[in-house]
């Protein structure tokens, strides 16, 4: 369980997160949605302990970060490190031994090549593979479907479902609503640093509709004209 109480974060006078109160239970998948700049990544970084914040973050582990797999929006790779070495680096960091790497390479990545030369989607899949092999209890996946091909997309959805079955806590952000509605138990809408709405599975369709109205509004007409 991860519990956020009155979590706030500011950069100087700019408030990025304001009084966030959320609870993430074991065996559940949570979605965080919002426009670019709504505060999703900052929220994830606060939970991971990569940012200072005010408020409180509690978990059922002593040091949350030691059990947390964090998938960054744009995973960083050293210039001359291969895919296999990257996985080994992250697993070594958590004192996890990795055997049969070839067999566990479910995304069929060229692990002998330098990871920095991978495409965006391959980088995402490599980073995700490393997190899964770390045997974490909690997962924060920031845009896990970004740049990923259709097959891998399906595999990732199934992996997330399996993580739920295994009793792990998964928090995802995605700009593709369908992937969230397929995997999440609960979705939170973040707007300008505040959670403005939290919905369960049966209300996902209404949330999507609401977001369409809210986000799109008359924007299409503004850029393309009214069609006359």
């Amino acid at each position: 369980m991860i519990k956020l109480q009155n979590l706030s974060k500011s950069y100087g006078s700019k408030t990025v997160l304001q009084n966030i109160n959320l609870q993430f239970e074991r065996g559940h998948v949570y979605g965080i949605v919002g426009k670019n700049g709504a505060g999703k990544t900052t929220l994830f970084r606060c939970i991971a302990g990569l940012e200072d914040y005010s408020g409180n973050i509690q978990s059922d582990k002593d040091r949350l970060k030691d059990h947390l797999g964090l998938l960054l929006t744009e995973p960083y790779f050293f210039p001359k490190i291969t895919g296999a070495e990257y996985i080994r680096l992250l697993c070594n960091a958590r004192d996890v031994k990795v055997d049969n790497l070839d067999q566990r390479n479910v995304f069929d990545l060229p692990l002998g090549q330098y990871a920095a030369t991978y495409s965006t989607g391959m980088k995402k899949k490599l980073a995700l593979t490393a997190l899964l092999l770390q045997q974490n209890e909690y997962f924060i996946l920031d845009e896990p479907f970004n740049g990923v091909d259709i097959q891998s997309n399906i595999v990732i959805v199934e992996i997330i479902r399996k993580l739920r079955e295994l009793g792990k806590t998964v928090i995802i952000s995605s700009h593709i609503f369908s992937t969230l509605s397929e995997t999440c138990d609960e979705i939170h809408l973040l707007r300008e640093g505040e959670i403005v709405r939290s919905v369960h599975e049966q209300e996902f369709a209404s949330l999507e509709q609401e977001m369409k109205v809210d986000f799109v509004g008359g924007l299409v007409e503004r850029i393309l004209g009214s069609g006359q």
Partner: protein
Amino acid sequence: MTNRWFKDAGIHPLIGYVLAMAAFVGISAYLFYKTPYAVYVYPLLALSLAGKLSELKRNDFLSQCFPKRKLNQLRITENVLAVLPFVFFLCYKQYFLFACVLPLFASLLAFARFRTTANITIPTPFAKKPFEFIVGFRNSFYLFLLTYAVSLIACFVGNFNLGLFALMISFGVCLFFYVKPEHEYFVWSYKLDGRQFLLRKIATALLHVSVIVLPIVLLLGCFFYHDIGMLLLFLAIGYAFLIYMIVAKYAAYPSEMSLMQTILLAVCIAMPLFLIVLIPYFFCVPQNI
């Protein structure tokens, strides 16, 4: 960008430019003092510097931003500016022919496009424990080959000091593996507290540097066994410098090592005993890791 780099290093840009200029003149003068072939090596150095600007991706980007004519003008200007300090120094040394030809070659080089890095995975003996020595070895393995060759020569000509020089160069190259702070994610990922993290980094570094210097130590140990005490002393100094680099790096983390730390490192090169104080000091300062 250079201004920002100086500011990040804690140096006022004006002072930075003066220091860079002084270093350039100093190194150039040293090169010409050291070898009669400097006049041939020097233009090649200048062209290799200008050649970095011909990197494929960079030029692809520029060609998207500028029309062809403007791009060519820009690239020629860049290359000529890059070799200009070399031209001035060649003029000062009265090698006027080379000074005239160099900008011409630099201008021609402006039309070339090539990858400055090959996409071949270089095998490394350090793959099991990432990452500093993996990346460092792949970037500078040829320097280690060079130091092995120098130590071999030292044995053949019976020059122990030359062997020690090769040993210290090997250590020096390894020190550079720890100059840049890594992305915060790779520190955050560790399931260790600050002290345990540092100890693990130090243990890995000592193990890996031992693998690198082992051929040199064995060679020198066999050929100059009567100087084994001196060899061990230099080995210990090398290890101490490596430990200093690690503790100083993480004392400054996530920033780069401060100017003061760099000055202290320079002081330690003159007085290695100073390391006995500095290593525990930087090990104990509160670290942001």
